[in-house]
C-alpha cells in the first residue's frame, strides 16, 4: 500500500521531467544545437545526481510549510500537483511544479486545519518574484559579458558554434543537477516525514538514508519523464517567448541553472552565513520561472520588440492559476479519499505536536553575539496548537 501511495510522487516526478527538462535543454534542442537524446541522457544523469547528493536543503523548507503527516495525504498532495502540472503541459504552458506543490500543500493545510506557517509561505512566495527577477538580471549581465568577450577574443563563427554546443551541454548538466537538487523536494518532499523506507546500502557500496532513497526514486521518475514526454516541450520552448540565438540560449540556461543552484546549495548558504552575509532561502524555486525570467530579461535588453507578450502573459496567468488549481484539486481529493475511501489523510495528534518552524530556522542563522532572546527560544520549544 505504501508503494501505491508513492505512485503519485512518481507521477509528479514524471510531470516534472516532462515539463522542467524543457527549461534546461529546451533552447538547445529547439535551436538544433544539441540532439534530443544527448540532452535527455545528460539531463537524466545529472537530475539523479543532484537529487541524491543535494536534494535535502529545499526539502526541509517545504516540510516546514506543511508537514503532511499521513501517507494517503502525501499521496493526494503529490497527485494534485502532478495533475495540475500535467494539465498545464497539455495546454502547452511551462507550468511551475514548485507552485503546484505549494498550492497542494496549502490545500492539505486547509483540509486538515493545520495552521500555515506564514513566514515560510511568504519566503516561498517572495522567491516566485525574486527568482525570475534574479534570473533576468543574471542573464542580462552574462549576455552583456558575452557580447563584450566574443568579439574581443575574435572567436570565429564555427569555433563559436563548437563552444556554444559544448557550453550548452555543460551548463545543461549543471542546470539538471540544480533542478534535481532544488526540485526533488517538490516530487518526494511531502513523503519525507512519512517515508516507508529505512536506511539502505545499494550494491553493498552506496549507503543511502531513507530520504535519499526517496530522492533516488523521484530522480528516476524525473528521468522517465524526460525520456518519454519532454521532446515536444523541448522543441517548442526554444522560440516560444523570444527568438533566441545559440549564445542567448546558452546564457539563458546558465542564468536559470545559477539561480536554481543559489536557492538549493546548502554549502553556499553555510559559506554566506560563515562570512556574516545574508543568505538566500533554500526553497524549491520554479525552473520555469527562472528560464522565462532569463529569456524575457534578454528580450528586454534587445529592446523588447521581439518578445511575444501574449505568450508571456499566458505563462504568468499559469503561474497564478497553477497553485490555485492544485490547492482546490488537493482539497477535493482529500475529501474524497477520507470520506469515500475511508483513508487517513492527516494525523490530528501529530498536528497538535508540530514544532514551529520559524525559531528552528532563525536560531541557527543568528549571528554569533546576537543570540535570540531566551523567551523567544523558550516559546519555540513549546508545542503549537
Amino acid at each position, binding site marked *: 500500500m505504501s508503494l501505491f501511495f508513492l505512485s503519485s510522487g512518481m507521477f509528479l516526478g514524471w510531470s516534472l521531467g516532462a515539463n522542467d527538462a524543457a527549461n534546461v535543454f529546451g533552447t538547445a534542442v529547439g535551436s538544433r544545437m544539441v540532439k534530443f537524446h544527448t540532452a535527455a541522457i545528460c539531463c537524466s544523469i545529472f537530475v539523479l545526481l543532484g537529487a541524491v547528493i543535494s536534494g535535502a536543503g529545499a526539502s526541509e523548507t517545504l516540510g516546514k510549510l506543511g508537514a503532511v503527516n499521513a501517507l494517503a495525504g502525501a499521496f493526494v498532495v503529490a497527485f494534485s500537483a502532478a495533475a495540475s502540472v500535467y494539465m498545464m503541459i497539455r495546454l502547452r504552458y511551462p507550468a511551475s511544479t514548485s507552485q503546484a506543490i505549494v498550492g497542494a500543500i496549502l490545500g492539505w493545510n486547509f483540509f486538515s486545519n493545520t495552521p500555515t506557517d506564514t513566514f515560510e509561505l511568504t519566503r516561498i512566495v517572495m522567491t516566485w518574484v525574486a527568482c525570475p527577477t534574479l534570473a533576468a538580471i543574471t542573464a542580462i549581465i552574462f549576455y552583456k559579458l558575452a557580447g*563584450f568577450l566574443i568579439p574581443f577574443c575574435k572567436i*570565429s*563563427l564555427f569555433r563559436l*558554434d*563548437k563552444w556554444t*554546443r559544448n557550453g550548452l551541454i555543460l551548463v545543461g548538466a549543471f542546470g539538471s543537477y540544480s533542478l534535481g537538487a532544488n526540485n526533488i523536494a517538490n516530487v518526494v518532499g511531502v513523503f519525507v516525514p512519512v517515508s516507508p523506507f529505512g536506511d539502505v546500502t545499494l550494491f553493498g557500496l552506496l549507503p543511502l538514508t531513507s530520504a535519499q532513497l526517496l530522492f533516488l526514486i523521484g530522480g528516476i521518475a524525473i528521468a522517465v519523464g524526460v525520456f518519454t514526454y519532454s521532446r515536444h516541450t523541448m522543441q517548442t520552448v526554444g522560440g516560444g517567448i523570444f527568438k533566441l*540565438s545559440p549564445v542567448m540560449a546558452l546564457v539563458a540556461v546558465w542564468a536559470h541553472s545559477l539561480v536554481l543552484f543559489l536557492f538549493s546549495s546548502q554549502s553556499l548558504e553555510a559559506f554566506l552565513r560563515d562570512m556574516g552575509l545574508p543568505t538566500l532561502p533554500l526553497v524549491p524555486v520554479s525552473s520555469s520561472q527562472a528560464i522565462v525570467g532569463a529569456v524575457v530579461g534578454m528580450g528586454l535588453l534587445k529592446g523588447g520588440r521581439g518578445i511575444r507578450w501574449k505568450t508571456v502573459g499566458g505563462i504568468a496567468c499559469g503561474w497564478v492559476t497553477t497553485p490555485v488549481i492544485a490547492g482546490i484539486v488537493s482539497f477535493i481529493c482529500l475529501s474524497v479519499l477520507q470520506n469515500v475511501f475511508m483513508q487517513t489523510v492527516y494525523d490530528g495528534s501529530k498536528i497538535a505536536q508540530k514544532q514551529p518552524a520559524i525559531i528552528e530556522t532563525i536560531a541557527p542563522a543568528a549571528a554569533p553575539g546576537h543570540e535570540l532572546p531566551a523567551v523567544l527560544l523558550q516559546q519555540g520549544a513549546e508545542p503549537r496548537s
Partner: protein
Amino acid sequence: MSYGGILRKKIGIEHKVDAFLDLVSESGMIYRRGVESYTSNDLEAFKSHLDQIVDTERQADVLRRSIEDLLYRRTLIPESRGDVLRLIEGMDSLLGHFKGSMFRFEIERPRMRESLVKDLTELVHCVVEAVEAVTCSIRSFFKNILAVSDHLHKVSYWEAEADKLSTKLQTAIFRSENLELCESLQLSAFVRHVDAIADQAEDMADSLAIYVLKRAF
C-alpha cells in the same frame, strides 16, 4: 555521427570555406590577366587563363557542394547557415560571372579599339577589386565579425568607380564615329556585363551588412 565527429567536421568546414574564398579571389586575378591578354591580342595566354578559370570554377563547385552538405546534413551553425549558404552561393555566382565574361570574349571575339582598352582594363580592375573587398568582408564575417565593416565600404567605392567607368566607356562607344551600330551594341553589352559583376558584389555586401546586424550582441 558522434558528437566528436561533428566537431571534427566543423574544423574541416572552416578550412573548406577558406579554400572556397581563396578560389573566388584567385578567379578575379585570373580574369584580370585574361582580359589583359585578350586586349593585348595574346590569344594563347587568354586561352590558358580561360582553362584556368574553368578549372577554378570546377574546384569551387566541389567545395561549395561539400560545404552545403556539411552545413545541412551535420546541422552546423543552425542559426546562421541560411545566411552562410546565401553568401557561398553568391560568391559562386560571382565566380561564374568571371567565367561567363571570359567565355563571352572567347565566343564573340569583339574587336577592341585602342582608345577603349585603357578604360576597359581600368573597369576590370575596379570590378576585381570590388569582388576582392567583398571576399575579405566574408572572410571577416567567419573569423572576426568586427572587421567586416573595414572592408564593406571598399565594395561601395569600387562599385561606384566601376559605374563611372562603365558610363564613360558606353558614351565613348556610342559617340565613336568609326564604329558600326552593331559593333557599338556588342561592345556596350560587354561593358554592361563586366560592370554587372561589381553590382552583384555590392548586392552581396548589402546582404552581408544585414547578416552582421542580425548577429550583433
